[in-house]
């Protein structure tokens, strides 16, 4: 492997979260009965004309502003011509020469402490095609045009990634960004966020790019990493065996864990792009761009910086908490309840909560423990109602659905004993019962203190405040 370098660029299709389609008034909602959300325009009936949904343009500009991109004042829609049954007009309205978003960039952090800039060549608006369904009717294909005309933002990166890991970090970054910007729901299973990867390999030190293959049909970050790694291996094996890579489109098959050829360059269509005469060029003013810039939410980079500078979190924790909008919003909602407890909260979210979520395969938005519940738990630690150890038990119970922290503490009698009189009498009893150990301690054997703490905690059934127990014990054991 070491003598090879892989070069990866991604094409990401983000489905924009507009209510209606990009060129018609039909709904974009997912999951309706086939062909119930396709109007005359989506069906490509004779005589119909497209009318641009301004909201899609605004969303594309939001993205452009967020990646610090050049945004042209003049953008043009073009027709990409090819025949396919789920492409009703025989052409897709897309953008070719003058995309709405020009050159921009994002920073990725493929591993702790690493920071890398990835260039974005362009992002353009286009309409989605419908869906062909081949397995429902014997010997016939069915077509569902509900998806036809759904707005997509195609985000094309520079070939700046050098490993599958970097590609995934980039894809996650874009995923996070479009969700922060509220322009895409990011749902990969429903196809709202799709990645195609252009992969090539070359010997280290070589300047010229190798021949690339385009990988399609990747619907999770895990598969993205897997597909790229398999493809890199395939290409290296091929070249080392004396063969050469051909430019082609390859399909990733997650069940067989392989990529296979879909069509070669020779079979590729000549799309005959030309400006769509049915649509006027989109005119974007500086005022439009500034108005949109002003409406942007706090973006991950800014948020991360604030977490570090103002909340005193570590770089690593700040990165993890801001990596996706839902985690950051969870953190901020909980923090509003327990201001100042930044580090404790971060540790709980990134530790126990993330662990539990991963185990249950849940997203943070689906957590059975709400931000308010977690905040209450943490405040019960800080006000000494329970110990940190007890808190783990309460957390577990909350996860199981036993109620809020207060409910569980109450129901299980987990409240700490913080009354020093009660603790003193417990200690007195333990000292009286263990004269030998008292002698040892007073003779300088400090370790015995642990024995006394353990005994007191045992007597209190774990409810005595360990800090107080420690302090009082030291006082009473003084020679």
């Amino acid at each position, binding site marked *: 492997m070491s003598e090879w370098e892989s070069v990866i660029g991604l094409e990401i299709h983000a489905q924009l979260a507009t209510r209606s389609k990009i060129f018609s008034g039909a709904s974009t909602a997912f999951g309706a009965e086939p062909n119930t959300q396709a109007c005359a325009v989506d069906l490509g009936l004779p005589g119909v004309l497209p*009318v641009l949904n301004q909201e899609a343009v605004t969303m594309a500009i939001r993205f452009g502003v967020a990646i610090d991109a050049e945004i042209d004042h003049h953008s043009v829609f073009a027709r990409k011509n090819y025949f396919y049954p789920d492409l009703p007009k025989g052409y897709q309205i897309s953008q070719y020469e003058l995309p709405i978003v020009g050159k921009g960039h994002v920073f990725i952090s493929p591993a702790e402490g690493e920071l890398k800039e990835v260039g974005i060549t362009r992002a353009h608006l286009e309409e989605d095609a419908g869906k062909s369904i081949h397995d429902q009717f014997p010997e016939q294909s069915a077509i569902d045009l509900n998806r036809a005309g759904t707005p997509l933002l195609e985000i094309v990166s520079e070939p700046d990634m050098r490993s599958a890991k970097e590609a995934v970090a980039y894809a996650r970054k874009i995923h996070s960004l479009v969700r922060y910007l509220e322009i895409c729901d990011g749902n990969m299973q429903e196809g709202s966020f799709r990645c195609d990867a252009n992969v090539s390999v070359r010997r280290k030190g070589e300047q010229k790019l190798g021949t690339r293959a385009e990988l399609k049909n990747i619907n999770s970050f895990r598969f993205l990493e897997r597909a790229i790694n398999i493809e890199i291996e395939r290409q290296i094996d091929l070249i080392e065996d004396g063969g050469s890579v051909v430019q082609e489109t390859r399909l990733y098959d997650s069940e067989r864990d392989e990529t296979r050829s879909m069509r070669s360059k020779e079979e590729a269509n000549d799309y005959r792009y030309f400006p769509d005469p049915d649509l006027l060029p989109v005119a974007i003013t500086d005022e439009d761009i500034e108005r949109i810039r002003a409406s942007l939410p706090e973006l991950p980079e800014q948020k991360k910086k604030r977490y570090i500078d103002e909340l005193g979190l570590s770089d690593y924790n700040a990165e993890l908490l801001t990596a996706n909008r839902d985690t950051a919003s969870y953190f901020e909602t909980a923090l509003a309840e327990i201001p100042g407890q930044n580090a404790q909260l971060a540790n709980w979210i990134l530790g126990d909560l993330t662990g539990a979520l991963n185990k249950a395969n849940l997203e943070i938005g689906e957590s059975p423990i709400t931000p308010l519940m977690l905040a209450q738990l943490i405040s019960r630690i800080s006000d000494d109602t329970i110990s940190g150890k007890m808190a783990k038990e309460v957390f577990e119970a909350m996860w199981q659905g036993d109620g809020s922290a207060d409910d569980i503490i109450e129901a299980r009698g987990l409240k700490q004993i913080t009354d020093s009189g009660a603790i003193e009498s417990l200690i007195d009893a333990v000292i009286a019962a263990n004269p030998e150990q008292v002698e040892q301690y007073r003779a300088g054997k400090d370790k015995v203190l642990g024995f006394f703490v353990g005994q007191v905690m045992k007597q209190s059934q774990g409810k005595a405040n360990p800090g107080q127990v420690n302090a009082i014990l030291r006082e009473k054991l003084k020679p």
Partner: protein
Amino acid sequence: MARSVTEIRQGLAAGEFSSVEITQDYLARIAQHNPALNCFISVTDDIALAQAREADAALARGEAGALTGVPLAHKDLFCTDGVKTSCGSRILDNFIAPYDATIIENFRRDGAVMLGKTNMDEFAMGSSNENSWYGSVANPWNTAHVPGGSSGGSAAAVAAGLAPGATGTDTGGSIRQPAALCGVTGIKPTYGRVSRYGMIAYGSSLDQGGPFACSAEDCALLLQTMSGFDRRDSTSAEQAVPDYCGALGKGIEGLKIGLPKEYFAEGLDDRIAAVIETAVAELRKLGAEIQDISLPNTGLSIPTYYVIAMAECSSNLSRFDGVRFGYRCENPVDLEDLYKRSRGEGFGAEVKRRIMIGTYALSAGYYDAYYLKAQQLRRMIKQDFQQAFDSVDLILGPTTPETAFKLGAKTDDPVSMYLQDIYTISLNLAGLPGMSLPAGFIDGLPVGMQLIGNYFDEAALLNAAHSYQQVSDWHLQTPEAFK
């Protein structure tokens, strides 16, 4: 008896006849003459009579709109809800449109009655109406001759008195040329004046709908209804529509009219030149100031047009694939077979020729040499006109280089057919309005005079044409067989 739109409105208002009566009258004329002329692809008797009854009721209530009760015919490329909309093609022979084009809605709003759908060159591609799946249309002035195209059915229907007015579309001359050849008045408005929604596209950047009638006055009435911004058509103009009828009768004293020398050059029938010169003399008598001008890039308009129109049509016609609507071949063995045979059997020869040329012009490696070059020439042609309009108000010339030719005379010579549009085509490239009105006859066949106006200045065109029609009677002539 055939009447003008204006006469019908007056007669209905005065209660001389009802809309049902006049509609029945036209339906009877269609039944009598259509077999010889083949103007109509569909005659919508039931719809016409139902609309006429509604119109009579509205008239009785005193709620008449601008065209209430007036029967009209529509070119069969305007989608009409529940009615076959064939575009003159086999591929749409079974297509019942599920919606109305905007202009059809407009006519409905203003109370007009639909007599039927008129014959046309397939997908509006042609200058003789011989490219129709439904057969050619005969010219009412001499049934051995073509009516012109592509809106041949509409022009012939108005000429023969089978409808007092009709709609057409003009991509390179498809209103003006058949108007000239059939001796009727027709106007192609500025690109963007009339909504293209529901108008089956040929060359989207060139297509524009407009009316045919017996006079400029009638055209003004019909254009009023057709015009206006439509949010469903992004290329329609968000610009107020003036009162076209109110603009008539102002006279043309002091109007500056330019005669482009390129429109009177080689290729023009001398007899047509003479007819136009006579008409120009009339206009001068009415006070117009005539001057010679030049449109130096006129000769480039035909190649420019054919690259752009064909490129656009090659894409516009991709939706006719046998998958969702229209003709599908029998027993396709696979997807490619379905496409190839549905399109191969569904489209006629001229449509296939244009799709192939357009596909070639847009192909990788040829795009710059053809499509991009044509766009540059298009700008030059537009500049010619803009410069001309710095010194004149209107431009005048012949509509066509010759009168209606014989059926079959040019079917084997597409280039000669394309040259029929030499004077009309550059307006579409520039997006300018133009109209054709009758100016005389040669051997019993009408001669058309073309007027070209500045952007959105249809009112000036209509007023000049109206002024001429006040002192001439060419537009009042009716072919003997259809009196």
